[in-house]
């Protein structure tokens, strides 16, 4: 039986699809229709992340997928990375393959498809078609204001999962029935 752990302070909308062992840190925002699928091992999400609508975070491997703090998963991004550090941005509709482990301060530009098998150096920026890679001088700044705004506004219009109630969510084979 898988379980969902939400730390107090996180805003997770009921409409978000969360499966398997997922732990969500404080101040993290999960929008409606975002998908966090721990189909293999568990997913551990740190603090102050934003997971926007239709963004998908998936872990198919049996190892746990650890996501750090202050990351942004923008609309429609699909992230399967092994591990994710801090201050990364996954722009709209980007795809990050499952063999890549991401350090800190990386930006995956809109629509990019990144699937190298080695670790990505810190402050990397991937952009364009065909894919280009450059190293930025500094990491993107944290979205503190945006998180404060969302955690104030989102509960006004959406049902939020109450972090204090321990809940058990359907285990993995649910995908077959749907």
């Amino acid at each position: 039986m898988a379980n969902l752990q939400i730390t107090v302070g996180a805003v997770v909308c009921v409409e978000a699809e969360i499966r398997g062992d997922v732990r969500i840190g404080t101040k993290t925002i999960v929008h409606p229709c975002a998908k966090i699928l721990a189909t293999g091992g568990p997913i551990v999400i740190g603090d102050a992340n934003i997971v926007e609508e239709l963004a998908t975070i998936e872990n198919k491997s049996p190892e746990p997928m650890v996501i750090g703090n202050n990351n942004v998963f923008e609309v429609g991004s699909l992230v399967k990375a092994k591990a994710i550090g801090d201050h990364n941005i996954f722009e709209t509709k980007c795809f990050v393959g499952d063999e890549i482990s991401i350090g800190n301060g990386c930006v995956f530009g809109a629509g990019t498809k990144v699937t190298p098998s080695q670790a990505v150096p810190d402050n990397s920026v991937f952009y364009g078609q065909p894919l280009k890679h450059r190293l930025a001088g500094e990491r993107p700044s944290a979205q503190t204001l945006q998180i404060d705004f969302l955690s104030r506004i989102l509960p006004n219009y959406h049902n939020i999962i109450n972090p204090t109630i321990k809940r058990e969510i359907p285990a993995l084979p649910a995908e077959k029935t749907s």
Partner: protein
Amino acid sequence: MSHLFQLDTVKYVCCCGSLKPICNVYFCRHCLRLRCHYCVSHEVDSHYCGNCSENMPSAEAKQKRNRCGTCYDCPSCKQTLSIRATTIQVPLEDEPEKLVAKKLYYLACGFCRWTSRDAGLPDSQNTSGPWAEPENPLAQQIIEISDYFRMLAIREKNSKDKKFVQKSKYLAAGRHGVAHLLPRRYPVSVPEEMSKPLPTPLYLAPTEGMEDLPELSDDVYEDELIIPKVTSLTQRLRQLETQPRETSKLLPTHKQLLVKRSLRCRVCERNISKPEYSPVSIKFKIQLNAYFHVPQIRLMTPLNEPLVPGRKARIVLRLANPTQFPTAIRFLPFSFVPLQKDGSTDKRALDAGKFDPTRESSTDHSLPSHTLTPTTSITFITPSMTGGGTLGSGESTQIMKEIHVLPRRSERFSQNCDVIPPADEIVLPPRDETSDFDDFAETPDFNDDPKLVPWRKANKAAVYLDVIRQLTDGSEPPVLGITIEYDYVNTIVALESKGVQEPQKVRLQAHLLIALDRIPS
């Protein structure tokens, strides 16, 4: 989804022999010919910046090397840079304990996230910079060399009065270069001075080869090459003066100016396209694109199976009349004759024109080339003009002009399907813009044969056509060549003679190549 006008499917053959989709050809109302961008002359109307829409006179643009003074491009990915603001806390000058917020600005790229901080530029207190400009290490050399050539150009200009002086290539540099701007500043040389050889600038001296090259430093072999830190070739060439090797040395580049451009028919020298002067306006004063004047043809139903040589198949074409007047379209076998140097094809075409004196059919497809043998072609045409009488004196001069003026671009194409031309003409009513929004508008009744015209709406109609594949190699994709003949009402004649004359109705031809195996949009 492919383009609405089927850019790759239906190609119109311009009179110079190039193949273009309808949205890329123009129609000269005075010559009544299709013109592509090879057969029009392009003129720069005004320079402007595409980002800030600021107009710039051409002299200033030249001085600023066609670049905007205020807008910058990202040196890493060529997007326009935007200005970002940050606030920092600085102590007040008279009260160091107190902190005040101060705004600082830097440039940032929204696409690749390059910032001016990456280049090591300090943040600016103004939104307009100043930002560091790349210094050209060869600036002095360039000035000296251009001075040298300017001197040469002036000497040649002075010696032009002498009869025996031959034309040389330096003159050409003076003609569009800088020389004509500054000739007066230099005194006219006296003959003694003229004969003196100019001192050659240092940089024109021949370079000397080195016997032994310096050893490469150990870093080259030992340091790991980090690809993202090395500039790409495009990045280097965009910063032509310095051409940095490391990405950290890329500096913001001024945005390149755009031009508003007017087009002029090379034959009659009248405007074909003239934009409005203001950079923010997207309207035109004159716009003679072919899709406002020539019937639009689209492939509605392509072949559903490959066409074997010798076999027949049926396709559906969609016709549309873009003009204000009704037109009647007749399909003919493909009759485009590429421009040829010898006179034989000209004779055939001109004779063909003589058969039907009432029809002012266009003979542009059979124009002889302007190259190599213009005089012989002209002497050939003139007698046939007087004998035939189909082409007036005005038209003969026009043809002579086209021979001289138009470039010859006979693009290669393979045309391996023929049309079985239907006997009837298809009449299309004029275009009515409101009918596009009215689904229940009455469809005009033209008593069409339903075996020829299956569908009709406003100024559009669909036509069944039978095509037959030529008995050639069947491996090529099927391409149908077809010539359409249509009515065109020329209102420009009425305008020019101040309403005395009626609008002139002429019968024109257009030649098309249609790829039959593409999927229509």
